[in-house]
């Protein structure tokens, strides 16, 4: 009753021109957009304002605007640039492995395989299990004397144990390894879904043309998987860039000696331990601008926001 009336009303809208097509689009899109922007707008502008203020321990309730001083602080310390570089390495290495491992496993799981369903379900576990206990378990696995990893290295690979959590490069690697473990099931699931959209006929045609497995991948699979993977990769990059949890938990807050930090964990430490909210807001704005600039470039190159068909 009511639904058909709505249906007819909407139907009337489309028998006319372009403007009404736009209306339909707006109706479809409005609820999501309203929820999104409503939630984020106020906190965002709050931070913009705070970043120009001196909100801190001594000026907690009575802060006032002081211009660009916090930004000067952010850019003047050399530590900003080293941590920025580390963040880039962190992001690139993580996303690269997430996607590669995810896609490879999805391809393998898409074939005929014994116990496929069970394996697929088991491989989803890192995504399903709460992050905290897993990060702490990995941390204990990296323990120099008692951790499973060093024991494995010493016994089976006959190599010297690594001081995982005591040295900066090793600690950073430990965090990366843990995060890769946590992140690949997500990409694998996306890839599995994406593989379903590729029509079988294209593979058959390629077979007739005598293409090898490798060629089939690059000419058929990869291009058609792209539109489905691009959102995941873009957001994967953004999320990994901003991921505080894993670095914090595995390295115990930046150990050794505050060397294991990415920009966001540095914001957390520098700001929250010392109540420097103005500084934290400025640093957060800088992180935001970096990611914004990156996405504009990235999206332009992949033309992901256009209609494909």
């Amino acid at each position: 009753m009511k639904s058909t009336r709505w249906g007819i009303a909407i139907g009337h809208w489309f028998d006319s021109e372009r403007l009404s097509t736009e209306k339909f689009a707006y109706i479809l899109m409005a609820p999501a957009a309203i929820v999104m922007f409503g939630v984020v707008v106020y906190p965002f502008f709050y931070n913009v304002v705070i970043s120009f203020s001196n909100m801190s321990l001594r000026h907690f309730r009575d802060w006032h605007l002081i211009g660009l001083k916090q930004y000067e602080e952010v850019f003047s310390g050399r530590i900003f640039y080293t941590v920025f570089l580390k963040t880039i390495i962190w992001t690139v290495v993580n996303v690269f492995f997430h996607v590669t491992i995810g896609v490879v496993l999805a391809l393998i799981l898409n074939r005929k395989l014994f116990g496929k369903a069970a394996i697929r379900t088991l491989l989803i576990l890192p995504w399903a299990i709460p992050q905290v206990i897993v990060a702490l378990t990995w941390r204990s696995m990296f323990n120099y004397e008692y951790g499973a990893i060093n024991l494995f290295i010493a016994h089976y690979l006959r190599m010297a144990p690594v001081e995982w959590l005591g040295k900066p490069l090793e600690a950073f690697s430990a965090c990366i390894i843990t995060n890769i473990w946590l992140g690949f099931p997500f990409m694998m699931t996306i890839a599995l879904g994406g593989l379903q959209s590729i029509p079988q006929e294209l593979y058959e045609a390629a077979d007739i043309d005598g293409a090898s497995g490798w060629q089939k991948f690059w000419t058929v699979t990869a291009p058609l998987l792209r539109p489905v993977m691009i959102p995941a990769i873009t957001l994967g990059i953004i999320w990994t860039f901003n991921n505080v949890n894993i670095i914090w938990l595995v390295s115990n807050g930046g150990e050794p000696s505050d060397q294991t930090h990415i920009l966001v964990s540095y914001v957390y430490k520098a700001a929250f331990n010392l109540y420097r909210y103005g500084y934290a807001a400025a640093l957060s704005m800088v992180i935001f601008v970096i990611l914004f600039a990156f996405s504009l470039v990235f999206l332009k190159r992949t033309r992901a926001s256009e209609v494909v068909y």
Partner: protein
Amino acid sequence: MKEKKGRFRKIIALILYLTVIGFTIIVLYPIINVFSISLRPADRLLSTSLKIIPDGASFHAYKVLFTETPFLLWFWNSVLISLTVTATGVVLASTAGYAFSRFNFYGKKSTMVGLLVTQMFPPTMLLLPMYIMLLKLHLINSYIGVIVIYTSTALPFCVWQMKGYYDTIPFSLEEAARIDGATRWGAFRKVVLPLAAPALVITALFSFMTAWAEYVVAAQVLQDTSLFTLPLGLKQFESSMSTQWGLYAAGSLIVSIPAVALFLFLSRWLISGLTLGSVKG
């Protein structure tokens, strides 16, 4: 020649299978470790022995979890919130994603980028203003505040994902349906949505996981212990230097079960392969 190719194929197949098994082992080891922690007496996170079943193992932690803690209450609360977020996410993302995929309208590009932009701001500094906002709206200590925030966290990815998937479904299919007399909405519902099932599954899974395991926002917003979700409940076992690791580990494992179950349930639509043969027309 053909025989060599056949054997080569078999070797490749074996290598691939072993790769998958290898990864499964890598995935399982830490999880089995967590299981060991849950069985270990005296709340020890670490152990000097690598035994999977520790000395003095018992299911005591599980028993306590279900009988002496409000675990089931937290479970129910989490289910309520997560399913709401999932349903809302699927509805909003499937419609918005369709709009972005099929139409070219004023403000489209900026809205799409805008969705991404909402993810770029580091979450740590958003907590304070979000709390103040919810306080002013009297939404502190209520589920709706939490549900709205979770949905908005999950939406950008879901909308983009749905759009990307819709992009792989040829428009000709909808045109064919419309020629047969379906309305735009009908074509969307009956032709496009079923083909987009894998993406809907991903949207559902992602929304669910976002809500199910989230801690920070819930901790700031929910003050009443009867409203606690599972992550908040698990945190009660933690104490900066005196964590009840047995309970915590047991709780964590149980918490992952619904997520895995959901994946199992939805995976038949994830790999439905419905586009097979539908292009010819």
